C-alpha cells in the first residue's frame, strides 16, 4: 500500500526551525533557540524513525508529488519526493547523526555570541540535505546540492570576522560551484536526450540501453560530468582542496557537514545514478581511479598534519576516496555501507576532537597536547572507540565496511586492493598517531593560556580554569555515537564471517539492476574465490591495521623524538607533504592569479578602457576637432562669405548646366 508519508514534512520541519531562529532568534533566549532547533531537527528524526517502523507496510520505492515547480513547454519539474531503501538509509544517517550533533552543539556553542545564527544555519543545512536525499528528480536534488553548499558556506564562515574563515567559506562555495557546473551540464544532457529529470522516468529510459564499452558516449559523458559534480561536493581530486580549509568552521559543523553528511552527498548521488554508471564502464573506471588516488593521496598528507582537525579532515577525504573506489568497482552497497559507518565514527571523532579542543581552550595543535587521557576520560574512551573503528579493527564498524570494499576492489582489479590496503595502513597509523599524541605522554601545552587562538571557539567564560571535561550535553552524543561506531558495522557482517550481510540484502532492490548488466561484477561472489580467500584478505587487512597501530606506538609513544629525526632525514619529501604537495599554491599560480591579473589588465583596462571607451571618446573628440576646424569657415570676413556664396552659386550653376545638357 502507498499510504501518504508526508515526506515533504521531513525537510520542511528543519526549515521552519531555521526560519523561526533566523527571524526571532536574535531577540529570544538561548534556551528558546535551543528548544526550537532541537525540536524541529528532532521531529525530522522522529518522522524518519516513524517511517522505519512502518517499513514493513511500505511499498518502496515510494513517490510523493507535491506540486509542479517549473514548466516550460514539454519540460516539467515537480516538487516530488522519492523514498527507497537507499534514501531511507541516508535519511536515518542524516537525521540521526544530525540530531545528535545538534545536541552536542548546544553545549559547544553555548558561549558564542550569535548562538541563534548557528542553529538557524544548522537547521537550514538539515533542510537542504534532506531535500537532496529525498528528491525525486535531479533538479530537486540540485536544490539540495546547492543548498548544502550554501549552508556549508555560511557555517564555515560562521566566524566571519576571521578572514581565514571567510575565505575558506568562499573557497568551499566556489570550488563546489565548479563541480555543480559539471552537474548542470549533465542535467542539460538529460533534458536534451531524455526530456526529463525525473529519476524513475530517466532510469526506465536508460535501462534498456546497452553499456558503452567503447569510447565516450552519451551515458559516459553524463557519468563523467556527474562525477565532476561529486568531486566538488565530496572533496575528491582535483576539487578536494576546500575541505581541509573548511575546518575553519566550528567543530560540530566539521562533524556534521564535512564528515558525516554533506560530503557524502556525492557518493549518494553517484549510487543514485548507478543505472547510468553501470552502462558507462569508462566513467566507472574513472570514478574508481579518482577514489583510489584520493584515498592514498589524502592519507599521505594526513600522516604529517599536526592540527588535530586537519588530520581528521584529510582522513575524511581519504575515506571518501574509499567510498568512490567502492562505487567505481560497482560495489554500490559497500560504498553506502562505508558511508554509514563512516558517518558514525568520523562524526564521533570530530565531536571528540571538538571536545578535546574545548577542554584545552581552543588549542588545535596536537604538539601542544598530550597526556589528556586522565583529564578527560569520557572523551578519551569515546575517541578510542572511533579510532579503532576507523583503523578497521574488528569488531568495530569501520572494519566491516572497509573490508567489504577491499574485497570487492580486489575482485575488480588487484591494484585497487593494494592501494586500498596501503591506505588502510596509513589510516590506522595517522589515527593512532593522533591518538597517542593527544592522550599519552605529558601535557605539552600551557594550561593557563586560556584564550585560545580565536576568541569565539574558546568559550572564554570558564576557559582559564585549566583542562576540564566537557559538559554532559556534549558527552551524551559522544557516547551514543561511540556505541554506533562499535556496533554499526554488524549489519554488514559478510557471509565469510558467518554473518549474512543484511545491508547488502537490504539495498538489493535498489541496486538489483546491476545484476542484469553484463560485464559487471555481480553480487554473488564468484565460485573461484570462495570464503577462504575472502577470509585471507580479511586477515591481511586486519594485520595491516595493527601494523599501523604498531608503528604509531613505536614512533609516538615509545620514542616520541624519533619522528622529528625522520622528518629531518627525508627533508624534501616531508616538507612537500606537510605543505600538502603545494596543491593550493599551484592552483593559485595556475588559475586564480592569472584570472585576476588577466581580467584587470587585459579585459578591464585593456579592452574596456583602452579599446572600446578610447574609441568612443576618441570619435567624440574627433567630432569636436572637426567642428573646431569647420568653424574657421566663419572667418568673420564679409568678402570671404561672399566668396563662399559665389563659389557655391557657381557650383550649383555648373551642376544644373550639367543636368540640363545631359
Amino acid at each position, binding site marked *: 500500500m502507498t499510504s501518504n508519508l508526508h515526506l515533504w514534512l521531513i525537510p520542511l520541519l528543519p526549515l521552519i526551525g531555521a526560519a523561526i531562529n533566523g527571524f526571532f532568534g536574535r531577540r529570544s533566549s538561548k534556551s528558546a533557540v535551543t528548544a526550537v532547533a532541537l525540536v524541529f531537527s528532532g521531529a525530522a528524526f522522529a518522522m524518519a524513525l516513524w517511517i522505519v517502523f512502518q517499513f514493513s507496510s511500505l511499498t518502496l520505492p515510494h513517490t510523493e508529488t507535491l506540486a509542479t515547480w517549473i514548466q516550460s513547454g514539454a519540460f516539467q519539474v515537480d516538487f516530488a519526493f522519492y523514498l527507497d531503501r537507499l534514501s531511507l538509509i541516508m535519511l536515518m544517517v542524516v537525521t540521526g547523526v544530525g540530531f545528535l550533533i545538534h545536541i552536542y552543539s548546544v553545549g559547544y556553542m553555548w558561549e558564542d555570541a550569535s548562538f541563534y545564527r548557528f542553529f538557524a544555519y544548522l537547521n537550514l543545512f538539515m533542510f537542504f540535505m534532506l531535500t537532496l536525499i529525498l528528491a525525486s528528480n535531479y533538479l530537486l536534488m540540485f536544490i539540495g546540492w546547492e543548498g548544502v553548499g550554501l549552508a556549508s558556506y555560511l557555517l564555515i564562515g560562521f566566524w566571519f570576522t576571521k578572514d581565514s574563515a571567510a575565505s575558506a567559506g568562499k573557497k568551499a562555495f566556489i570550488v563546489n560551484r565548479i563541480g555543480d557546473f559539471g552537474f548542470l551540464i549533465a542535467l542539460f544532457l538529460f533534458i536534451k536526450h531524455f526530456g526529463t529529470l525525473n529519476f524513475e522516468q530517466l532510469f526506465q529510459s536508460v535501462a534498456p540501453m546497452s553499456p558503452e564499452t567503447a569510447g565516450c558516449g552519451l551515458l559516459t559523458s553524463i557519468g563523467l560530468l556527474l562525477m565532476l559534480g561529486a568531486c566538488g561536493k565530496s572533496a575528491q581530486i582535483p576539487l578536494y582542496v576546500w575541505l581541509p580549509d573548511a575546518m575553519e568552521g566550528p567543530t560540530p559543523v566539521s562533524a556534521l557537514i564535512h564528515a558525516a553528511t554533506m560530503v557524502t552527498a556525492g557518493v549518494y548521488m553517484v549510487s543514485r545514478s548507478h543505472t547510468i554508471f553501470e552502462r558507462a564502464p569508462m566513467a566507472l573506471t574513472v570514478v574508481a581511479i579518482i577514489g583510489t588516488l584520493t584515498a592514498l593521496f589524502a592519507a599521505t598528507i594526513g600522516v604529517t598534519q599536526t592540527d588535530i582537525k586537519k588530520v581528521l579532515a584529510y582522513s575524511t577525504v581519504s575515506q571518501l576516496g574509499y567510498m568512490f573506489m567502492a562505487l567505481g568497482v560497482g560495489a554500490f552497497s559497500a560504498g553506502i555501507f562505508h558511508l554509514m559507518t563512516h558517518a558514525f565514527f568520523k562524526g564521533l571523532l570530530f565531536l571528540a576532537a571538538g571536545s578535546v579542543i574545548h577542554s584545552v581552550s581552543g588549542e588545535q595543535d596536537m604538539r601542544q597536547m598530550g597526556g589528556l587521557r586522565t583529564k578527560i576520560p569520557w572523551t578519551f574512551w569515546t575517541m578510542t572507540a572511533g579510532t579503532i573503528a576507523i583503523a578497521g579493527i574488528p569488531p568495530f564498524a569501520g572494519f566491516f565496511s572497509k573490508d567489504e570494499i577491499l574485497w570487492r576492489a580486489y575482485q575488480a582489479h588487484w591494484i585497487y586492493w593494494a592501494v586500498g590496503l596501503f591506505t588502510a595502513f596509513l589510516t590506522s597509523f595517522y589515527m593512532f598517531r593522533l591518538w597517542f599524541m593527544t592522550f599519552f605522554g605529558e601535557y605539552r601545552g600551557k594550561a593557563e593560556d586560556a584564550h585560545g587562538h580565536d576568541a569565539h571557539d574558546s568559550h572564554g567564560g570558564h576557559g582559564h580554569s585549566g583542562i576540564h571535561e566537557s559538559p554532559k550535553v556534549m558527552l551524551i552524543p559522544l557516547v551514543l555515537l561511540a556505541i554506533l561506531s562499535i556496533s554499526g558495522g554488524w549489519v554488514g557482517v559478510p557471509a565469510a564471517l558467518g554473518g549474512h550481510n543484511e545491508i547488502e540484502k537490504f539495498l538489493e532492490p535498489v541496486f538489483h539492476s546491476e545484476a542484469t548488466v553484463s560485464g559487471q561484477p555481480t553480487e554473488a561472489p564468484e565460485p573461484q574465490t570462495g570464503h577462504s580467500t575472502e577470509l585471507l584478505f580479511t586477515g591481511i587487512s586486519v594485520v595491516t591495521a595493527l601494523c599501523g597501530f604498531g608503528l604509531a606506538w613505536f614512533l609516538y609513544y615509545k620514542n616520541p623524538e624519533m619522528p622529528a629525526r625522520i622528518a629531518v632525514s627525508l627533508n624534501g619529501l616531508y616538507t612537500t607533504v606537510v605543505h600538502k604537495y603545494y596543491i593550493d599554491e599551484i592552483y593559485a599560480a595556475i588559475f586564480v592569479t592569472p584570472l585576476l591579473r588577466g581580467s584587470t589588465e587585459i579585459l578591464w583596462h585593456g579592452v574596456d578602457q583602452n579599446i572600446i571607451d578610447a574609441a568612443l571618446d576618441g570619435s567624440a573628440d574627433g567630432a569636436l576637432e572637426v567642428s573646431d576646424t*569647420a568653424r574657421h569657415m566663419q572667418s568673420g570676413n564679409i568678402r570671404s562669405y*561672399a566668396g563662399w*556664396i559665389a563659389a557655391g*552659386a557657381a*557650383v*550649383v550653376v555648373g*551642376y*544644373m*548646366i550639367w*543636368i540640363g545638357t545631359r
Partner: protein
Amino acid sequence: MNPAQMPHAADYIRILPELVLSVFGIIIMLLDPVVDKRSSQRTLGFVALIGSLAAIAATYYQSCSTGLGFWNMVQVDSFSTFFHYLIIAITTVVILMSFDYMKVQEIRAGEYYALILFGAVGMVLMSSAVELVLIFIALEISSISTYILAGFRRRAAISSESSVKYFLLGSFATSFFLYGVALMFGATGSTRIPDIGHALATAPIPLLAFVGVALMFGGLGFKVAAAPFHVWTPDVYEGAPSPVVAFMSTAPKAAVFAVLLRIFFEANAPGRLWLIWIAAALSMTLGNIGALVQTNVKRMLAYSSIAHAGYILVAYAVAPQDGIPAVMFYTASYAAMNVGAFAVASHFGGAGERYVTLEDYAGLGRTSPVLAATLTIFLLSLIGIPMTGGFFAKFYVFKAAMGANLVGLTIIGLLNSAVGAYYYLRIIVFMYMKESEKEAPVSPIPWGLGAALTISLAATLYLGLLPGRVLEYASRSIAGLLH
C-alpha cells in the same frame, strides 16, 4: 479708365492681411511722435499686437474666399493661408516678447514695431504671391526691414556689424536671385509661376531655365541659410537683438520655404533631386558640426538653424504630396520651438544681452526653474524628442524621404539629428547639472514674455501630441500647388 480695369473688393480681400498689417504699421509711425515717450514702448507695442491679431482675423476672413487676385498676382488658397497664419502668429509672439525687451535694452519702440509689421507684410505677400517680380519685391521688403532690425541695438558694435553683413551679403544674394528671375523670364517668357510651370512641363526645357533655377536657388538658399549659402547666419544671429533673431530665423524662412515650394513644385523646376540632396546633406552636416563647439547660445542656435534648414530641405527631394506637408509642418514646429528658445534667450540675456554664453546658463535650473524647464522643452523639441513638435517634424520629413527611397539621405539626416542632440543637451546640462560660480541675475518673467512662452510652448506640445489636424490642413493645401 473703365471700371473693369479697377481692382475689385475681392482683390483687396486677397491681400487683406497685408493691408491690415501695413495700416497698423503706418498708424504706429504716426503715433510714434505724438505719444508720450515714457509710455511709448508699451502703447505702440499694444497697437502692434492689436494689428497682428487683427491680421490673423483678416487671414481667417480671407481664408473663406480663396482664389486669385490682382490680375493673377496673388493666389490665396489653403497653402498661402497656412503661411499667413504661421507668419502672423510668429509676428504676434515676437511682438509680445519684445515688450519687455525694448524696455530693458532702451530701444526706440516706434520704428521697431512698425518695421516688424512691415516685414510681416513682405513675408505674407511672399507666401501668396505667384509672380516672381512681386515675390522679389516682397522678399526685399522683408529683407530690408530685417536688415534694419538686425542693427537695432545701436550702441552695440556687433549689432551694426551684423546689420551690415546681413545687408551686403543679402543684397548680393538677392541680385543672384534676381538674375535667376531674369533668366527664367528669358527662358519661358513669363514670370508668373503657373505659366512657368506650364512652359517647363513641356520638354525640351531650355538650358537657361536650368541656370535660372540655379541662381534663384542661390538667392533663396541664402535666405533660408542653406549650405553653401549659410555662412552669414551665425554672425548675423549673434549680433542681432534676440527677438529680431527669433523673428528672422523663422518668419522669413517660412515665407521663403513657401516660395521654394512654389518654385520647385508649382513651377516644377528641373534638376531638383540631387541639388536638394547635396544642399540638404551639406546644411545638416555643416550646421551640426559647427554648433558642436559653440559656447555662445545665440550662435549655437544659429548653427542649429542651418541644420534645421537642411532637415527641411530633405523634404524637397521627395514627391510633392509627401514633401509639401512635411515642409509646412516642419516650418511650423520649427517656428514654435525656435521662437520659444530665443524668447528665453532674449529675457535671460539681460540689458545689453550680457548673458549669452553657456557658462551664464549654469545653474539656471535652480535660479529660475520655470524658465529653465521651458527652455528645456524647446531644446528637446529641437533635438526631436517625442511629445514635442520637433519630433514629428523630423519624423515626417524622414518618413517622406524614406518613402522616396532616399535611404542614404535619411540615414545622414538621422545621424545628424543624433549628433545634434549633443549641443542642445549641453545647454540642458549646464542649466541643471552644473553649478554656476557667478550667478547670472534672472528677473521675474514679465507677462508679455510669459504670454509668448506660453503660446510657443503650447504650440510645440500641441504639434507634438496632436499633429494630426495641422498635418491634414497641410496636406489639403497641396492641391493649390499641383495643377
